[in-house]
C-alpha cells in the first residue's frame, strides 16, 4: 500500500539505554488512528495497556509522545500533539500546542517521536536530518523559559551555521519544545512549552519530560512534507482555507482575548475567585485594555493567516520585563478574574511568570484560586502559606507560583494539582476540601462555566469528557453529542481547532492521505474508536488514583451551587438532568449507561484487545470494588 501524507515511521529514543531507532507503523494503523491523539491512544495502550494500572506516569516506563498528523504543514496553523499516560488523570490526554517541531519532524522524515526511559542526568534530544543525539543539558537545567529558548537557539543555530553555511547556505533555524523549572520538579500542572508562551498544558506532560530528565527536544529537518495523494487539489483547498480565515478580522485582531469582558458580563461563565462567582462588574478587561501593551499587531504560527496571537510586553513600572502572548481568554480568566486580579498589567505579569516557570496557566490558575479560597475560609492559614493569599494580590500569587514551580512549602502540596492537593489537605486539616476543587478527573476545568448555560459547553460536558476538564475537547452544545469525536479529529489530524473548517479539513485529509474518511465515517468509526480507548485507560487509571464510573463522571460540586451574582443569579446545574444526559451520551457512543464500552462496540470498532480490561472493569463494578 502506497502511503501518502505519512512517512510511515516514528523515531524512538530510549533515554535509559541511550539509543535511538526507527519504528515502522503499519499503514492500516495510520488509517484507523490517523495521527496525533488517535495514534497516541493506540500506541500507549499497545505498549502499556497490559499493566496500565501499575504504570507510574512519572516513572521511566511511561512514554512521552510527540506526534504529527497527516495535515501537518498543509493545514493552516501547525500543531504538535503531546501525549503519554497523564500524571493528572492517569488516563490518556492528547495535549496539543503550536510548535514547528511538528513540521521539522516531518521534514526530518518522521511522523513523530517516542521517548522512553529516563536519562541519568539532564539531557536534551537533538535531531538534525537523520542524525539523532542525546546531549547533556546541565547548563540548561533550572533555567526559565526565555533563557532556555535563548541559549538553545544560540547553541543550535550557531552550530548549524558553522557546519552548513559555507557549504550550502543559510538553513532555517531549528525548532524545539522544552520545560521550565516546574516540569523539572515534576509539578503535575507543568506544561510542555514552545517559543515563549505556547504550551501543551492539559495532562501535565511537562512533568513527564521532567521525570525523564529531558529538558528539551530540538528538531531540524531538511526535506519536504510527505507526498500528498492529490497535490493539485491540496493547493486549491489550501487557498480556499486561507481566503476564509483571512476574512475573520475580529478574531485575527483580538483572538480569544476579546472574551475577557464579553464572557464575564454577558454570559456569566467566567471563573471569579475560584468559581465562587462567574460574573464581575469590573470593566478593566477586554481587548481594548490589552492592545496598548501589544508590540506586534499580529503573530502567527506556521501557515496560519488567522494570527490570533499577540505579544504583550510591559516595558516600565512594577511589572517591567513581562512578556507573554496576548493574554488569551483563558489566561485573562484564570490568571485574572479567578484570582480576583482585574488589572490587565497584573494579568500579563502573572501569565508571563507562568510561561517562564513552564506552568500550565489554566491548571495553575485553578490550583492557585483553590488555595486562595482555602485561605479565605481559614482552612489554610498564614502559617501554612507563609503570607496572606488575598484575592487580587498579584504579588502574593506570583510568590505562590514560584513556590509551586519549585515545590517549596505549601507549593509542594499544590504542585500535585488541585485534586491531589485537596485530598491531602482534607486529610491533614480534617475538612472536605474537595468541595472547593473545580476539576474533573483531576484536571482543572477550562474557563467556561456551565451554570448560566450561556457559554458553549452544555451542563454535562465536563462530567463525561475523556480528557477530564479539558474545555477544548469536551462535547459542546453547538454540535450535539457527536462533538467530542469532532475535537478528537482536530487533535488527531493535528490541526488548530480555531482554524478547523469541516468542509475543507475532511476533503484535505482525503486529498493528502487518500483515505476514504469523511465527517460521517469519522464520527461513526474513528472518533468513537479513539474515545473508547481513552475511556478504558481513564477507568483503568492507577497507580495512585482511579475513577469510579458514575460517581466520578460528575461535575465539580461547585457547579451545583447556585450562582450568587450577575444576571443569571440563582442558576445552577441540576443533578438529575446531568445524570440523564450523561447516560444518554454514553449510550450514543455504544457504551453502557455507566460508560463502560459494550462488547459489540469493541467488535465493531476493531478494539478486541480492550476486552480483558473491559470485562475486569465490568466485574469490579458489579462487585462494588
Amino acid at each position, binding site marked *: 500500500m502506497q502511503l501518502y501524507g505519512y512517512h510511515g515511521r516514528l523515531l524512538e529514543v530510549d533515554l535509559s539505554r541511550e539509543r535511538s531507532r526507527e519504528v515502522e507503523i503499519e499503514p492500516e494503523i495510520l488509517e484507523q488512528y490517523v495521527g496525533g491523539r488517535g495514534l497516541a491512544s493506540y500506541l500507549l495502550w499497545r505498549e502499556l495497556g497490559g499493566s496500565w494500572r501499575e504504570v507510574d506516569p512519572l516513572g521511566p516506563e511511561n512514554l512521552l509522545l510527540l506526534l504529527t498528523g497527516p495535515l501537518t504543514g498543509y493545514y493552516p496553523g501547525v500543531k504538535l500533539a503531546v501525549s503519554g499516560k497523564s500524571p493528572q488523570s492517569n488516563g490518556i490526554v492528547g495535549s496539543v500546542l503550536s510548535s514547528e517541531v511538528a513540521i521539522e519532524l516531518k521534514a526530518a522524515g518522521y511522523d513523530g517521536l517516542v521517548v522512553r526511559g529516563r536519562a541519568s542526568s539532564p539531557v536534551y534530544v537533538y535531531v538534525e536530518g537523520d542524525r539523532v543525539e542525546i546531549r547533556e543539558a546541565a547548563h540548561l537545567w533550572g533555567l526559565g523559559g526565555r533563557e532556555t529558548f535563548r541559549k538553545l*537557539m544560540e547553541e543550535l543555530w550557531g552550530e548549524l551555521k558553522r557546519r552548513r553555511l559555507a557549504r550550502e547556505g*543559510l538553513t532555517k533555524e531549528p525548532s524545539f519544545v522544552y520545560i521550565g523549572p516546574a516540569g523539572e520538579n515534576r509539578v503535575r500542572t507543568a506544561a510542555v512549552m514552545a517559543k515563549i508562551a505556547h504550551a501543551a498544558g492539559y495532562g501535565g506532560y511537562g512533568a513527564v519530560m521532567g521525570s525523564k530528565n529531558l529538558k528539551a527536544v530540538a528538531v531540524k529537518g531538511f526535506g519536504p512534507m510527505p507526498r500528498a495523494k492529490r497535490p493539485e487539489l491540496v493547493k486549491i483547498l489550501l487557498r480556499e482555507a486561507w481566503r476564509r480565515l483571512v476574512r475573520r478580522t475580529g478574531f485575527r485582531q483580538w483572538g480569544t482575548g476579546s472574551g475577557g469582558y464579553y464572557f464575564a458580563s454577558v454570559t456569566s461563565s467566567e471563573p471569579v475567585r475560584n468559581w465562587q462567582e462567574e460574573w464581575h462588574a469590573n470593566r478593566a478587561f477586554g481587548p481594548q485594555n490589552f492592545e496598548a501593551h501589544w508590540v506586534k499587531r499580529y503573530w502567527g504560527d506556521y*501557515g496560519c493567516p488567522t494570527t490570533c496571537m499577540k505579544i504583550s*510586553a510591559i516595558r516600565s513600572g512594577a511589572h517591567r520585563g513581562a512578556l507573554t502572548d496576548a493574554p488569551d481568554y483563558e489566561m485573562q480568566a484564570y490568571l485574572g478574574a479567578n484570582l480576583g486580579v482585574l488589572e490587565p498589567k497584573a494579568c500579563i505579569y502573572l501569565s508571563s511568570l507562568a510561561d517562564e516557570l513552564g506552568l500550565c496557566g489554566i491548571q495553575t490558575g485553578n490550583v492557585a484560586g483553590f488555595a486562595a479560597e482555602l485561605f479565605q475560609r481559614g482552612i489554610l492559614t498564614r502559617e501554612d502559606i507563609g503570607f496572606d493569599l488575598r484575592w487580587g494580590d498579584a504579588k502574593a500569587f506570583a510568590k505562590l507560583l514560584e513556590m509551586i514551580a519549585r515545590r517549596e512549602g505549601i507549593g509542594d502540596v499544590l504542585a500535585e494539582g488541585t485534586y491531589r492537593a485537596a485530598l491531602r489537605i482534607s486529610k491533614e486539616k480534617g475538612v472536605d476540601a474537595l468541595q472547593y476543587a473545580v476539576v474533573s478527573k483531576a484536571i482543572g476545568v477550562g474557563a467556561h462555566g456551565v451554570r448560566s448555560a450561556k457559554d458553549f459547553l452544555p451542563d454535562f460536558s465536563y462530567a463525561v469528557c475523556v480528557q477530564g476538564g479539558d474545555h477544548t475537547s469536551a462535547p459542546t452544545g453547538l454540535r450535539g453529542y457527536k462533538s467530542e469525536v469532532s475535537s478528537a479529529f482536530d487533535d488527531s489530524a493535528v490541526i488548530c481547532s480555531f482554524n478547523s473548517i469541516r468542509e475543507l479539513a475532511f476533503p484535505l485529509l482525503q486529498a493528502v492521505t487518500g483515505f476514504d474518511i469523511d465527517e460521517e465515517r469519522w464520527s461513526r468509526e474513528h472518533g468513537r474508536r479513539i474515545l473508547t480507548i481513552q475511556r478504558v485507560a481513564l477507568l483503568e487509571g492507577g497507580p495512585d488514583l482511579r475513577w469510579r464510573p458514575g460517581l466520578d463522571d460528575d461535575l465539580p460540586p461547585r457547579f451545583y451551587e447556585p450562582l450568587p451574582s450577575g444576571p443569571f443569579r440563582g442558576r445552577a446545574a441540576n443533578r438529575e438532568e446531568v445524570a440523564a444526559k450523561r447516560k444518554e451520551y454514553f449510550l450514543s457512543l455504544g457504551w453502557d449507561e455507566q460508560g463502560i464500552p459494550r462488547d459489540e462496540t469493541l467488535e465493531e470498532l476493531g478494539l478486541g484487545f480492550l476486552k480483558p480490561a473491559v470485562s475486569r472493569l465490568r466485574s469490579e463494578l458489579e462487585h462494588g470494588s
Partner: protein
Amino acid sequence: MSKPLFILRDPLKCSGCRLCEVACSLRHEGTVWPEASRIKVFELFPGVDVPHTCAQCRDYPCVKACGYGALKPDERTGAVLVDAEKCVSCGECVKACPGKVMRLHPATRKAMVCDLCGGDPECVKVCVEAGFNALTVIPYESVTLHVYSIVPDEVSRRLYETLFGE
C-alpha cells in the same frame, strides 16, 4: 512585459505566518517544503520575525562568482536565474552572497534563489491577500543603489531592540 522589480520587506509588519514560504514551495516544488522555499522567515526569538530573500544586488556578486556561467540575471525582472545543467554545486555563489540568501537546494544540491516568479511573486500575493503587506512589489528604479540583503541574525537583533527595548 514586466520591468525589473524589487520585493520590499517590512519585518515590523511580518506576523511570522510563513504563508510566503508555503506559497513559494508549493509553486516551485509542488509541496510544502520550508527549506526549499526561496523566501524564508527566521524567528530567532519568539515574535521577532525576519522575512529573508534575494535583493538582486545590482552588481550581482553571485553571478560574478560563478565560474560555470550557471547564473545570469533575467533582463525582464532582474531576478537571478539558475541554469541547473551548468551548476556544479561548488557553492561559490553561496560564499559570495552578502546576505546569505543564495543556497544549494536541499535535495538537488543546485544553486537556488528567488526568481521573482517571472515578475509576479507568489509570496507577495499571499502576504498582501492576508492583509499583512510585509512584502510588497516595487519597481527596481525606486531602490537606492547597493541595496543588499542583511543577514537575518543582524536584522533580528535590531528588531528585538525595536520591539522589546533593552
